Each structure stands twice: as structure tokens, then as C-alpha cells.
């Protein structure tokens, strides 16, 4: 096997190491370079997960393969930022599917100064090069210096010399073969780890843990999600920060209900109110986000003269700005700060500020079984009572129940047989999708009707714009009807014998 081509060396060790190397091999400075680069990814590391590294180097965006380091695409970057929509065409097409709704943000900025050292033969011909780079990482005011990185650059026709240089380096004390890429090191220097955030919940529990401990773990994890997303919500980097933030709030509220009594009752009551407040504070912005995200689809549905929706779009955008300003104020309020501080003390891992509640000593396995059985029973019961004559509210209520079941299954996934658990989630998601379509179209319809009223009052709105909204409402009504018709089938599938036996097997069969 050939010697590695890349090495690291602590700056302090280099003085001695280089002396040793120079004794065995003549190296002379050929050039010096200064380079700045910025690594970009989404908050949830979508590029990293897809096997890419994206760097902004000088005026260029370079997309490379994470494993091999080879550049797979390159495009000129216009303005310092490379937000989702502003990615140069070539990269946008390639990455759209990976990025989804998420925006790109800087994960680490690196300033490197490099020295190119040349190894020369008796004719003073360069036969191999050694590039030594000294990099500094900047991130949100943090500054860190990385170890020196050394890379041997072979020259065509002179591979033997490069191998010799590599061997010399490998045999020098303090010089180590490289074990992580510049990207990984730079990210680590910012205090993060590639892939450290995902919107998926992954909790490691076992059945014998007390409900008191398990509940605190759940609450802590969810609070971390809220904290991690807060800045992105405030800065409105993309709509997913708020989405994930809200899911964490909703999961917390659901846990406060389903795991009631794991903490002292008065404390739970107080935080139930606090998290309801927080959830409500985020709702207007999220609804408007969803509406704006739907616009491309709206435009498609009303067809040709899609410009007719522009007055509506302007109104919704305006509303959204205002709602977001209110949300920002709430997230900076003392009420919010107190909530975070006190809640985090109450659910602390080592030194919680409160003791266990009335059911705190029950084992979480036992409680999880009971709660999943109960909520599943309610879903089955409520769903079977719904027929064509039932009011829309009954479907909304069922949707809430389904969400509760979903959260319970997600909190406790580590307690159950994985295959069974997965099949149940699949069935549940199908039902939730149908209920979601039904409710979302309804919420949108009502919102559109309200906006239409307001545009009408504003007088100067062109008739075409109102007509377009009318057409859109009709389309949504249609979709809602379809969802309603499909409900019966979806539900009977979920409530079928096969799934029922899965449900009972889940909470009875011990893995």
C-alpha cells in the first residue's frame, strides 16, 4: 500500500518535525497563498447527509463529494450569500431535491494561509510539492486554529519522489496521517458536529426507567430542539425552523397530557398553560407560511392568468411580516425566557429543581403500554363514529387524537419491536395524511374567504383577482370533498383486523 498523501501536525510540533524533514530532504518555499472559504449546509445537514460538501471559495461555489473530496460541480457565486433561491442555476437544479424547503447557511468560515514547498532534484527541477496550510475557523464570534494540514502533491512523471516525501512525513514524529477532512475539522471547531441536528426524534429508553426520568429526558430533548431552532425562527432563515419549533412545542404539550403526573401536578399545570401560550404565539405565522408555500400550487390550479393572484399574495405576505414581528417579540419576551429557564431546571438530568409527581415511580414501559392502548382505543372508537353526516369538527378531533398516538409511538419507539412499530407508523401516517388534507384545505379556504373580504373592502382590487380567489376556493372545496370521501376507506384500513392485531401485539409482545 502506498503512503498517505495528507497529514496533520500540531503547530507546536512543526518546528521540530520540519527540522527533521529538512535534514533528509531539501525543500524550498515556492509560493504562498491566502484563501478564504465558507462551508454551507442546511440547518439539518441535508447536503452532508446526501454525501456532499458545499464551499464558497472566492467567487465560486464548489460542490464536492464528501468521501472522495472530488469537485462534482462548480458555479460562479454572485453575491456573498447563497441562499436557497439564489443558488446559481447549475447547482440549484442539482440540489433542489436535497434542500427542499431548507435554506443554506454558513456552517464554518475558514481562513487559510498556505506555503507551497518544493522538493527539487540536482537540476533544481521541482519533483514534488508539499502544501502546508495553517487555518483559522471563525463562527459566530468563536475563533479556533486548526492543526497544520500537510498535503503532498505529486507531479506527473515524478511519482517516486512524491512517495518518498510521503514516507519521510509518515516517519516523522508529530506528523500524523489525516483522519478528517477540512470540512469536518472546521465544523468541529465551531462546536458542532455534522449531522448533529435532525428533526427526527430519537430517544433511547428502556422499560424499567422510571416515568419521572423518562419524562424529563423527553422534555429536555424537546427543549433542546426549541433552543436550537429559536435563532432561525427569529431570523426567518427558512420556514422549517418554525415548523420544527412548533412540533417540539406540540410534542411537549402532548407529553404533558399523556405523561401527566410524572412531575408535580402544579408544575405540570403551570407549564401546560405556558406551552399552550407558546404554541398559540407561533400559529399565525405558521399558517401564513403554509399559505405562502402553497402559492405556486395555487397559481397552477387557477391556471393561465396566474398574475391575478398577485394582490392576494401581497396581502398574505404583508400579514405574514406582521405576524412574524409579533412572534419575534414573544420569543424575546421575559415570559419566554422564564419559561425556558424554569422548565430546563425542572427537567434537568442531574439536579432537577423538583421531585417526582404521583406517577413518577411507575416504570415507563408499563405507562407507555397503557397510554398507547388508551389513545389507540380512542382513535378507533372516534373514527368508527364518523359517517358522511358528521360535522367537520369530528374529523379535526380525530386528527388530534391521531397526532397524540403518533407522538406516543415516537417517544417510545425504543421500547418496542421495530418491525411492528414501523408498520403501525406507516398505517397511522396514511390516515393522518388524509385527515391533514381535509383540515388544511379547510383552513386555507377560510383564510382565503377572509382575505377576499378584505380585498373587497380595499376597493381598488381588480375584479379578476377576486374571481381568481373564488376559483381557488372552489378548487379547495373540491379537494376537501375528495379527502372526505377517501376518509372512510383510509379509516377502515387503519381499523382493519390486521392493524388491530398489530396494535395489541405491540403493547403485549416484549422485544
Amino acid at each position, binding site marked *: 500500500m502506498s503512503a498517505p498523501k495528507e497529514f496533520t501536525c500540531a503547530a507546536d510540533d512543526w518546528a521540530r518535525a520540519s527540522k527533521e524533514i529538512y535534514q533528509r530532504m531539501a525543500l524550498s518555499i515556492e509560493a504562498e497563498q491566502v484563501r478564504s472559504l465558507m462551508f454551507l449546509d442546511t440547518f439539518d445537514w441535508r447536503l452532508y447527509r446526501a454525501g456532499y460538501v458545499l464551499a464558497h471559495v472566492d467567487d465560486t461555489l464548489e460542490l464536492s463529494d464528501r468521501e472522495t473530496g472530488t469537485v462534482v460541480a462548480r458555479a460562479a457565486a454572485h453575491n456573498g450569500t447563497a441562499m436557497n433561491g439564489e443558488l446559481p442555476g447549475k447547482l440549484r437544479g442539482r440540489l433542489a431535491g436535497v434542500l427542499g424547503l431548507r435554506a443554506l447557511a454558513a456552517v464554518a468560515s475558514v481562513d487559510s494561509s498556505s506555503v507551497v514547498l*518544493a522538493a527539487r532534484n540536482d*537540476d*533544481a*527541477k*521541482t519533483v514534488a510539492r508539499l502544501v502546508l496550510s495553517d487555518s483559522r475557523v471563525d463562527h459566530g464570534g468563536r475563533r479556533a486554529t486548526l492543526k497544520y494540514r500537510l498535503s503532498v502533491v505529486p*507531479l*506527473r*512523471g*515524478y511519482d517516486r519522489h512524491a512517495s518518498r516525501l510521503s514516507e519521510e512525513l509518515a516517519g516523522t514524529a508529530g506528523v500524523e496521517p489525516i483522519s478528517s477532512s477540512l470540512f469536518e475539522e472546521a465544523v468541529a471547531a465551531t462546536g458542532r458536529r455534522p449531522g448533529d441536528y435532525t428533526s427526527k426524534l430519537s430517544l433511547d429508553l428502556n422499560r424499567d426507567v422510571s416515568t419521572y426520568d423518562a419524562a424529563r429526558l423527553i422534555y429536555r430533548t424537546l427543549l433542546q430542539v426549541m433552543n436550537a431552532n429559536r435563532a432561525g425562527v427569529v431570523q426567518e432563515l427558512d420556514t422549517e425552523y418554525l415548523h420544527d419549533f412548533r412540533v417540539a412545542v406540540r410534542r411537549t404539550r402532548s407529553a404533558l397530557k399523556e405523561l401527566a403526573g410524572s412531575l408535580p401536578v402544579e408544575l405540570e399545570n403551570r407549564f401546560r398553560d405556558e406551552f399552550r401560550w407558546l404554541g398559540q404565539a407561533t400559529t399565525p405565522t405558521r399558517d401564513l407560511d403554509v399559505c405562502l408555500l402553497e402559492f405556486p400550487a395555487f397559481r397552477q390550479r387557477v391556471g393561465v392568468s396566474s398574475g391575478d393572484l398577485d394582490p392576494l399574495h401581497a396581502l398574505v405576505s404583508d400579514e405574514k411580516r406582521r405576524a412574524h414581528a409579533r412572534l419575534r417579540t414573544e420569543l424575546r419576551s421575559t415570559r419566554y425566557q422564564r419559561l425556558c429557564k424554569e422548565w430546563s431546571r425542572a427537567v434537568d438530568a442531574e439536579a432537577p429543581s423538583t421531585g417526582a409527581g404521583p406517577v413518577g415511580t411507575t416504570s415507563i414501559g408499563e405507562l407507555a403500554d397503557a397510554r398507547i392502548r388508551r389513545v389507540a382505543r380512542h382513535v378507533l372508537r372516534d373514527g368508527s363514529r364518523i359517517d358522511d353526516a358528521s360535522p367537520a369538527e369530528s374529523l379535526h378531533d380525530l386528527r388530534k387524537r391521531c397526532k397524540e398516538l403518533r407522538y406516543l409511538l415516537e417517544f417510545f419507539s425504543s421500547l418496542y419491536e421495530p418491525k411492528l412499530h414501523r408498520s403501525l407508523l406507516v398505517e397511522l401516517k396514511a390516515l393522518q395524511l388524509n385527515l391533514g388534507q381535509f383540515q388544511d384545505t379547510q383552513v386555507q379556504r377560510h383564510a382565503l374567504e377572509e382575505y377576499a373580504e378584505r380585498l373587497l373592502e380595499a376597493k381598488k382590487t381588480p375584479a379578476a383577482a377576486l374571481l381568481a380567489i373564488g376559483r381557488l376556493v372552489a378548487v379547495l372545496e373540491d379537494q376537501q370533498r375528495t379527502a372526505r370521501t377517501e376518509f372512510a376507506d383510509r379509516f377502515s384500513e387503519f381499523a382493519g383486523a390486521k392493524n388491530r392485531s398489530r396494535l395489541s401485539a405491540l403493547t403485549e409482545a416484549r422485544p
Partner: protein
Amino acid sequence: MRTVATYSIKGGVGKTSAALNLAYLAARDGQRTLVWDLDPQAAATFLFRVRPRIKGGGKALVRGKRDIDDAIKATDFPGLDLLPADFSYRHMDLMLDDAKRPTRQLGKLLKPLSLDYDLVVLDCPPSISLVSENVFQAADLLLVPLIPTTLSLRTFDQLLGVVAALDGRRPDVRAFFSMVDGRKRLHADIMRDLPHNRSDILKASVPSATDVERMGLTRQPVVVSNPGGRAAQAYTALWQECHDALFGPGAGTAP
């Protein structure tokens, strides 16, 4: 991939000096460039500080028995590689003569390099031989240094005649004045009396300059050793014209 050859029947007129400087300028513009030193005297190879030896000998290479890739050497300049000369090249005529189509053999050898290079510069020995016939077939542009004398102009016209009589593919032939001595009346007269419409004589001319002479000592293109000098400026202007002749006027430089 385009191919330019610095060529002249006469020796010592500035072929190698031009080949080196132009190749360097092309590489600096971002063209992946290969110089093939076809001269057994190995001047270009020496100037790039590479050993004038091809592993396994020139014969196997020229006959296509050995992969050309293995013989290529990086120069000290990014994007600029060299296919070195070998002493055995003095028998290149005989080596070529053994090939199936003796006048097309060089072109055939160059073909597979088109993935790796944007430009090949052939530095030729001074002669008219089977090697030069091969060069005429392989090159897109024949670049001929002329020392401004009436005799050299006549020789150039003869060369044009030879090329025009070739079968099939013919290179574009352009001359440039080389080693121009401003103090020599003859040089000034010849250049002034040249008909203005001779598009086959390039506008840029290379002055006689000590920094070019010193290339044998510095072993660097003058564009590197003395970038502000008159010779460097002349080669830069010459490269611009060659670039246009090879890639079309106004064509951007390679990525």
C-alpha cells in the same frame, strides 16, 4: 485540442524560445498544455530541467508500442507538461518510416491526448524530413520564426508552396519576425517594405534581447524571469495572435 508547431528549415532562429514562452503563456491562461520536444538536441527538455530520456526508448513510443502517457513529465509550471526528447530521436525518420502510414504517425499518437490537453506545442528540429511531413499533417498551426532577411522571406514562400502542395489536411502557416535587431538597417528595411496585406506574417515580432539569450542559464521562460522586458511583451502579443489563429478571434480563454 489544438496543435501548434514551431517550425523552420533553418536552425537557431528562435523556435524553441518561442515554443517555451508561448506554451507557458497558454498554460497561464488556463489551457492544459503539453510541449513535445521532437528535437534530439533536447533544448526544450533542458530548459524545463527534465532529463532527456524516455523510458524504454523513443522508438517504442514513436511506433505506438508504448503508452505516451507514461512518458509525460510535469514541468514546474501548473498546467504545463512536457513529453521529453530522447537521444534516439535522431533516428526518428527511420522509426516513422516503419509505420503503416508514415506521414500520419505523429498525429495518430497525439489523438488520445485530446482528453487531457487543450493545446499541444511541437518543438521541431530544423530540417525538412519525414518528421516535418508528420508535423505538417498533425499541426493546426505552423509557426515559423523569420530573421528579417530577404533570403528568409524567400525560404518562407517556398515553405508555403510545400504546404500548399500537401494532400488532405493542411495547417495554417504563419510567420513572425524573430531576433529583430532595431539597430540593423536591413531588419528595419525588410519589415517596412513588407506588403501590408500579408496576413500570413503576424504583427508581433520578437526583438533580439539578452534575456532570451540568457534562458539557457535561467532555464525559465523570459515571461517568468523578466516579465516586464521587451521580449516578454513580444511573446505575450505573439501568444494573443496565435490564440486567435488557433481558437478563433474573441474566443475566451479556456476555463
